């Protein structure tokens, strides 16, 4: 069976400062950050990457947290595992959509060791947390030595396996604002086999007005249907300010579908994935609406 054949220098960090210092030192070197390494180790086994340095941040316990307050919303530290997110009482109470999403991420074993931020940084276009974070209007904090910037979740991944994180930088936190009243969020992914990479995935947030009739805000995130997770802005616009009917949702789903640019693969063609994205938007939109009406 395959092992990692190419040697690397192993640089564990115990604190964020240490990690940023190491990153600054090795800014120009061929390095990789490892958190859980659930994708990285496989990539190294297959010699797809052969870094000279591995900067290990798994030990940064100060970044392993999930906090919430109404004012600043939710904060997810960069070392939070998928499993922590899935099982967190805060998440189950305030953002159950994230727990729902997590239940179908790979396997329990992967979720136990792999981190949410690591998954985002790996930047597979089908990454499960991508669409719900877009729908929830999440921000991602990227830190370098002595500097920090915050980017929108929808901007974070720029291409296949490429993000805004630059050499010398790392992600430290995800922030999600508190949900306005009368909001509903739903996420689903479709893969033929459970727990598999999504052929397409969709998350929809709908916020209704006081009367719970009109849609005052909508956000739609899609996964697996482009070179990075996609925000379906045109479809969102279609919903905003209107009373959401099944027809309108179907229309928005059609528009969202046109906002995708999937590629054909072994499992399905681009055309299929495009249609699938629309179907999923329609389905999760309906559920998000029902949740918003109950909220």
């Amino acid at each position, binding site marked *: 069976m395959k*092992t990692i054949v*190419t040697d690397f220098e*192993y640089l564990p960090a115990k604190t964020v400062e240490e990690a940023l210092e190491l990153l600054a030192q090795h800014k120009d070197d061929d390095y990789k950050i*490892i958190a859980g390494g659930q994708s990285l180790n496989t990539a190294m086994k*297959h010699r797809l990457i052969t870094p000279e340095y591995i900067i*290990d941040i798994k030990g940064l316990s100060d970044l392993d947290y999930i906090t919430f307050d109404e004012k600043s919303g939710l904060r997810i530290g960069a070392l939070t595992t998928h499993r922590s997110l899935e099982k967190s009482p805060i998440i189950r109470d305030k953002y159950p959509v994230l727990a729902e999403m997590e239940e179908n991420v790979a396997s329990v*074993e*992967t979720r136990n060791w792999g981190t949410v931020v690591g998954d985002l940084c790996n930047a597979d276009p089908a990454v499960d947390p991508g669409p719900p974070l877009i729908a929830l209007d999440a921000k991602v904090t990227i830190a370098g030595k002595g500097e920090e910037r915050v980017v929108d979740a929808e901007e974070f991944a720029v291409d296949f396996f490429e993000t805004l994180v630059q050499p010398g930088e790392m992600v430290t936190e995800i922030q999600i604002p508190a949900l306005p009243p009368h909001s509903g969020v739903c996420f689903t992914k479709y893969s033929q086999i459970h727990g598999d990479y999504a052929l397409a995935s969709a998350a929809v947030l709908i916020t209704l007005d006081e009367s719970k009739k009109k849609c005052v805000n909508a956000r739609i995130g899609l996964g697996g249907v482009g070179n990075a997770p996609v925000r379906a802005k045109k479809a969102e616009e279609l919903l905003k300010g209107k009373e959401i009917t099944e027809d309108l949702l179907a229309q928005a789903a059609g528009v969202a579908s046109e906002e995708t640019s999937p590629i054909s693969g072994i499992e399905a063609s681009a055309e299929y994935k495009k249609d699938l994205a629309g179907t999923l938007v329609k389905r999760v939109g309906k559920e998000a609406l029902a949740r918003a009406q109950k909220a």
Partner: protein
Amino acid sequence: MKQQLKIVVNGEPYDLFVEPKTLLVQVIREMLGLKGTHQACDSSSCAACTVILDGMAVKSCSVLALQANGKEVLTIEGLADGTKLHPIQQAFIDNWAFQCGFCTSGQIMAAKALLDENPNPTREEIQEQMDGHICRCTGYNMINEAIRDAAKRLQSEKSAQSGKGAA
């Protein structure tokens, strides 16, 4: 360059030196000779190599050994109490929950992690826990039944013990 790895495996402390590229499964199988943990894929997709690391089921093929430094590992070899099989092991035998047996160690370790956390899981909860595991022989149903059976055995063992404690 080799680095120090202090690790407790099945209750035994080990002080080892490993190359940083070494994976936890290599420590378990090759350095410690615990061959009960199996590998069946190269893409972190089958969970055959599952062990329990500080109470969590993880794929030992996908964890750098040095990341397990200072931690405790439980492998299939550490499950039985001397010659007495663990109730999960016995339930796997009694329910014909394996055939070729190659994925079984991983299945049992994942089941152990589940039952430690949730002593009375539903079929759905068992399936969620076990979903990462490929078994090419059984079709899974008999594994699920074994885990439900094991849960019952563990609970009756526990109540028997607490009964003893009360007396």
